[in-house]
Structure formats: C-alpha cells, structure tokens
C-alpha cells in the first residue's frame, strides 16, 4: 500500500513542481519517488498473506512481483523522457504526473482483491492515458488516437462494469474470495447472470489487453501517440492488465474452465494470426511493434487457458521479457526518428555500421521478441508453451509455432535493414544521449541475464 500512496502523493507533488516552474527537479524527484515506491514493494515481500483495508487489496507476492515489474519499466521509460518531453511540449510536469497516476492505477490492478478495486484501478490507469495519448494538441494523429482510445476504452469499461454488476447480482458480493466461495458452494445450479458476467468481463479485459477481435484501437492508438507513451502503454499497461486478468481467472473462475476455455482458445488463435499477419504487412517499425504487441497478447493468453502451477511465473517472465525488449525497441525508434525523421524500416538502414551498440541492442530485443534462445523472450515463450502443453493443446501449439515463424520474418526485417543495407544518410551517426545509452545497456543486460539465468525471475513466484 505504501507504494500506491507514495505514487499518488508524488503525482500531486510533481504537478506543484510544474506550477512553480522547477523543471530541472521534475525527473530527479520522480525517479526518487519511484525508488521509494520500489522500496515499499520490496520490503513487503513475503508479508502479505491476507487482504487488507476491508478486503479491498491484497499484497501477496503475485501482486508485488507485478508491481515491481511495472515500476521498473516505468522507471526505464521515464529515464528516457528527459529530452523527449522537452522536445514536444512545454508543460513537462503534466507528463510525469499523468504517467505516475496511470502507474498508480496499474499497481491497483495488480493488487486488487475486490472487483470494485479492479474497476477503479483500470479507470485510473486508463483515464490518465486518454490524456497522454492526445497530449500533442496540434497533432492530428495524436488527436485521432486519443479520441479512438477514449471511445473504445469507454466501451470496454462499460462492458467491464456491466460484467461486474451481473456478477454482483448473482453472488451478492464484489469480493473475489466471496465470488469464489459462491462458485464452490453452487457447483451446478449457477445463475445465468453469472455466465453473462464472466463473458462481459472477458470482453472488457480482452479490450484492455488488445486481443483480437477487440484490437482495432491498438494500431492507430499506438501509432498516433507519442512514442514514449506508446512504449508505456504497450508494456506497463498491458502487463498490469494481464496481471488483473490472470488473477481473476485463475483464482475465481478456474472451476468454470470448461465454460470459458473454448472461447479463449478461439480468441487466441484469431489474435495470433491477426497480429502476426498484419505485422507482416507493415513498412513502419512503430506500426509493426503495435501489431506485434497484439500477437504477444495472444501468447500471454496461453497462461490463462492453462492455469497450472507455473502460469503466474510464466506470465511474469514473459511480461518482463516483452517489456524490456519493447522499451529497447522504442528507445531505438525514438533515436532513429529524431535523427532521420521517419519511423519506417528504411530509416534503420546502415545503423549497424554507424551505431553498432544501438543496432546490437535493437537486434537482441528483436531476437527476444521472436523468442530465440539465450534471450529472455525464449524463456517466456518456452514457459507459456510448456503450460499449454500441460493441457495437451497440441493443435494450438502447432498454430503458435507457425505464428512464431511468421514473427521471425518481420522482427528480422529491421535487423536486415540495420546490418545489410547501406545507410541512406551516409556515415552520419545517430546521436545517442547518455540516458538512452544507460537504458539500452540495462535492457540488453537484463534480457540476456534472464535468458541465461531465468531462475532469477521464475523463482520469484
């Protein structure tokens, strides 16, 4: 709880700092706050056994691990923000404050123990993002993205809320243990409201994680938003939504697995194919990442259909791998776009010669996203595939494998452009500020570390 309070207060503090024009203090204060929040999370490790605050939140290791992941990734993204925000806006404080509020929501989603709390968490997380996506007021794409995101988000929130209401109607409680007990007590004669509730919740959550056929907002929103906000959305928001998703389905709805597994299976297959095949067609790196993030949602759903002992740790590992790789890829994209003014694959031509380190980090992150051994992405994929194999979803795995092979094609495309094509702008190197170098090297090291010694993440849960 300390982390959530810290971050809320920090958000307000940052707003005041902005008001008093203390711009140079913004980043240090924010980072310090994140470190304090991280400290709170780590000190609570292994201590949360029962829900607190009238059963609203539960800080078990599951919640803490995902919260730590969210805070670390946000820290990495904010570290990149120093020059980025200044270049696109005058009111930098708003960015920090909104991202912090959104992060607070993400932490609530990770640690809820009551459906009301889940709803509040998702709203806090999303509302801040609606503004962030549209923060470039004069930019047409940014405005379009914000409007699209807001409308779609409002819809999905409606579904979510309606689902929660139906569940309340059936069980008389918002508490997830209460709902679970209701399921155990009435194994046969469940109210039809309950099934309706599950379906609507499923739709609402699938909207949030961007799974097909509820993905239509993702590419445009990811494309239109400022790159740093996109990287925040596609990593922290997605991972937190998945944490909320898996908690609900593994803890509460697992007795009804026969009911929702077929639906989810179908959704996974559609998501994988839609995400991968459309990503294949893209000529813009940013849009490719947007579509690939859809396919990654598909892979992460594997953990939910096969709720085994390792489901939580596999989704945590995958979330870590995917977030690290995405942050590195988006950081590379920011630098390339800044220097070449384009986010097409062609802009990456010759990067291997001009910026070997940057090219290496992007390559490793692409290999990690593609799931090549010795990177974190492989461990994540292996664990998810393994859990799907535990339920003998062999056909699903065969389809997933076809998709992984498609994925390699478009992930390698940027690698091909970086190393095998001559630079378009001659020998000009892309300027890499120190903060970017730190983040790039950090993501590289963590990706390889988790790839070689995965125990460090897996043994957390």
């Amino acid at each position, binding site marked *: 709880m300390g982390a959530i309070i810290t971050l809320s207060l920090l958000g307000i503090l940052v707003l005041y700092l902005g008001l008093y024009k203390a711009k140079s203090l913004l980043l240090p204060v924010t980072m310090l706050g994140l470190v304090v929040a991280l400290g709170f999370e780590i000190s609570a490790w292994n201590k949360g056994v029962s829900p607190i605050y009238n059963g609203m939140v539960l800080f078990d290791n599951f919640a803490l691990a995902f919260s730590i992941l969210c805070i670390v990734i946000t820290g990495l993204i904010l570290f990149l923000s120093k020059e980025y925000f200044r270049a696109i806006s005058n009111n930098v404080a708003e960015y920090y404050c909104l991202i912090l509020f959104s992060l607070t929501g993400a932490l609530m989603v990770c640690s809820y123990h009551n459906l009301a709390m889940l709803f509040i968490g998702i709203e806090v997380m999303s509302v801040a993002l609606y503004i962030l996506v549209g923060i470039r007021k004069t930019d047409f794409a940014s405005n379009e993205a914000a409007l699209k995101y807001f409308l779609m988000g409002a819809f999905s929130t409606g579904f979510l809320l309606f689902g929660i209401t139906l569940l309340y109607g059936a069980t008389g409680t918002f508490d997830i243990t209460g709902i679970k007990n209701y399921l155990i007590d009435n194994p046969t004669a469940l109210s039809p409201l309950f099934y309706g509730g599950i379906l609507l919740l499923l739709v609402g959550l699938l909207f949030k994680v961007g799974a097909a056929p509820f993905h239509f907002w993702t590419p445009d929103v990811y494309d239109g938003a400022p790159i740093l906000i996109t990287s925040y959305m596609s990593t922290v928001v997605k991972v937190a939504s998945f944490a909320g998703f898996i908690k609900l389905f593994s803890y509460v709805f697992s007795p009804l697995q026969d009911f929702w597994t077929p639906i989810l299976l179908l959704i996974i297959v559609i998501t994988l194919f839609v995400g991968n095949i459309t990503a294949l067609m893209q000529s813009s790196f940013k849009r490719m990442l947007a579509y690939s993030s859809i396919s990654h949602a598909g892979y992460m759903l594997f953990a939910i259909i096969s709720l085994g002992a390792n489901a939580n740790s596999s989704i945590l590992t995958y979330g870590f791998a995917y977030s690290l790789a995405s942050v590195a890829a988006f950081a590379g994209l920011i630098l390339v776009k800044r220097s070449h003014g384009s986010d097409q694959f062609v802009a990456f031509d010759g990067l291997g010669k001009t910026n070997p380190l940057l090219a290496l980090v992007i390559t490793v992150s692409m290999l990690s996203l593609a799931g090549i051994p*010795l990177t974190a992405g492989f461990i994540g994929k*292996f*664990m998810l595939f393994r859990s799907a*194999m535990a339920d003998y979803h062999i056909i699903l*795995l065969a389809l997933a*494998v076809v998709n*992984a*092979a498609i994925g390699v094609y478009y992930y*390698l495309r940027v690698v091909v452009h970086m*190393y095998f094509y001559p630079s378009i702008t001659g020998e000009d190197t892309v300027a890499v500020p120190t903060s970017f170098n730190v983040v790039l090297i950090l993501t590289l090291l963590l990706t390889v570390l988790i790839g070689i010694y995965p125990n460090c993440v897996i043994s957390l849960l």
Partner: protein
Amino acid sequence: MNNLFILLLLPVASAVLLAFAKSSSTAKWIALVLSLVQVALTIPFVCAFVPDASVQFEQSFAWISSLNIHFHIGLDGISFPLVLLTNGLFPLIILSTFSKEIKHSFYALASFMQAGLLLVFMALDAFTFYVGWEAALIPIYFICALWGDGDRIKVNLKFFIYTFFGSLFMLIAILYLGQQTPNKDYEWTSFVALDLSEYAQRWLFWAFFIAFAIKIPIFPFHTWQPDTYTNAPTAGTMLLAGIMLKMGTYGVIRWLIPVVPFGASTYGTVALILCIIGIVYASIIAFKQQNAKRLIAYSSIAHVGLITAGIFAWNQEGLQGAILQMVNHGISVIGLFLVLDIIKSRTGTNTLNELGGLAYNMPVLATLFVIIMMGAVGLPLTNGFIGEFLLLKSLYSINIWYAAFAGLTLIFGAVYMLRLFQKSMLGTVDSSYVKVTDVKGVEVLVLVIICALIIALGIFPNSILKLSEASVTQLVQSVKF
C-alpha cells in the same frame, strides 16, 4: 582440466573478447591463438577418454529449477568424434581467412557459433540441446548475410526462417516428451526410457525429422541449401557444410531414433528412400552445374544423404560409417571449398566454362586438389573410402536395391568431381590466367593439413571407429526397430 565447461566457456569468452577487438588483423591472430588453445584444451579429453559405451565427463546443474531443466552435458563415443571435428576444423577455418580482410565481428560470431555447436554435440538434456541448436543458427545467419554475395539478404532470410520453423516443431516435440516423463524433466535418459504410444511416436517422428531434415538437408527439404552455400563467404560455407549440417545427422542418431523407435520403424523406410532419392537427384544436378561452388553444394547433399541413409539403416556398420563419414565429409568439404576460394581469388570466377589449365601455373594447388578430390570421391587409402564402404554395406544388409542406388553416389561423385577438376585445372591455359600465381604460405599450410588428415584417416580409420564402436554397439542393441 577435465571439466567440459572449459570447452564451452572458452569460445564464448573468445567471442566477447573478439567483439571488442580493435582491428581486423589483431582479431585474426587472437582468434587463431584462442582456437589453438581450444585444441590444446581438447587434448586432455582425448587422453582421458575411455572408448567404452559410458557417458564421460558429465556435468549437470539445475538451470531452471521449477521446471526441472538441467544444464547437462557429457561425451560418449558418438558425440566425441564430432567435438573433435568441431575443435579441429576451427583453426583451419580461421587460417583460411588469413589472406582476406574480414572484420573482427566475423571471428566473434564464429567463436560464438563454435560454442553453440559444441553445446549441441554435448547436450544430454533436450532443453540444453535446443538452446545450442538455435545458438548456432544466429551467428551463421549473420556471417552469411553480412559477408556473403549475390542475393544474400533474401537467400539467408529463407535459410533462417526455414531452419527456425523446423526447429520449432522439434520444440513442440520436446515439450510433449517432457510432459510425459515422470518427473516432467527433459533429460535424454528419461526421454529414451519413455513408453510412448504408437500414435504419439508417429507424429513425434515427423516433428523431429523435419527439424533435422531441414538442417542436414534431406531431399525435399534441401531447397535453401545450394543458394545459401553459394552466396555465403567461404568461411561461412565451411562452417555450414563442414560442421553445422552434422548437427542434423547427430540429432537423428542421438534424439530421433532412440526416443521414438516405433516411429522410426514405421517411417524409417520413407526417410531412407528420401535420402536415396536425394543422393541420386543431387548427384545428377551436381553434374549439370556451371558454378563450382554450387556443384560442391549439391555434392554435399548427396554425401549427407548417404550418411543419413546409413543412420536409418540402424545397424553397427551404418552408424559407425555415419560417424566416420561425418568427420570425413567435414574435412573434405572444407578442403574443396578452400580450393575453390583460392581459385576465385586468383581468377575472379568459379564458373567452370571460364576456367581451365590452371594446373600449368599452379602445380602445388593441383596436386593438393587431387588428394582432396580423391578423399571426396572415396578412393581407397583416402578417408572417404572406409566411410562410404561401411555405409553401403549397411544398406546392402537391408535391401540390395538401396545399396545399388545409393552406390551410384560413388560413380556420379567420381564423374562430377573429375569434371570439376578437368574443367578448372586441365585443358588449355586461358590467356587471361597466364599470370596466376600458385598457392603459398598459409594456404599451403591449411591444404597440406587437410590432405594429411585425409590420408591419415584413410589409412587409420580405426582412430575414429574405435572411439565410437562401444557406444554404437550399445545404442544399436538397446534401441531396436
């Protein structure tokens, strides 16, 4: 010094070191010295290796404890010759690049690949095996695409996706097998001990087979190979043909047949026939080639087809011959590619019609080329003879027609190799090649070492056969189909 980790660690350490090397010339020397150190480190293992059926120098520690995955490596009579081949060929491959200006990253990638290859041959845990399998693919992709020529980007993308696709099916098979084991682990011993249903064995056979068949490559999965070999830089082709394709044949011996013997008995004949079709088909195509490098690429398909056919025959001679021939083919093929590279560096072409009469100005090269060619054709007293003899004998013991068709490889091989030699070395001297200079220095050294190995293994094939004999006997007796 008998810790197998050293053999894996040194290439990785060299790769890291070489990645930071300042200039290409220092990188060359560092790579050479480190690869020679690797050879020196291999010697204690040669001395300590006992040629019985046991697994030796085993090392195992928990890698991902909650998933029961172990980093488990060891050597036995089947993997040891291939480890020797890998470590032995590496200094030669590095030496062969000495006359060129190649960036330091090439040596880093090659060293990293060496670690991947060794991991594949040493692995006794399926997860470890898979990691090595993919780890060897990434560097060779970069080597071929960065320093290759022709349509290198497209060709190598096809190569990468083709092989990656194949290995993903193997990953599914490994996951399935791991799920079946009592402890949910991925150890080779627990895979072999499994009592799988016939249905499962059928599809598992294909899941493994496709991965290996693409890598080897076996007809009709070979379409990536000629283009990749032809467009790759010579050192890359050497790595691919000399060592990497042995990953596939080794995989068949170690994983495919022992783990799914019933599947192998059901579809083994199909695989065998595919191999034999590949032998005849590739030989005929090789005969028609104008590009010498492409010719050797197709001849390589024919040779490994014979090796794989011998493995699927699954008897003592077949396996012994296959292991010996894997080593032999590795030595001969890098010799051939080196000769072609030297010819190209002197004349600027590998097209047969444009060459001719080179022996007049390059007598030393011509002599060494003859020896290497004899080895590739399989003449007695060269290395190829015993291997091919054993392989054909094993096929003969199953069905005389298999041996008859597979035996065509000897005749066809002689025809296209002699054609290659005749078109390049003999005939009238083309006016533009009057001034070509003969091989000298490092080139001679490498070629002489290769020729010496070819003759030595031709006279003393037992040095390899003895290593593998006990392991092969045990494997053939314990896995029957």
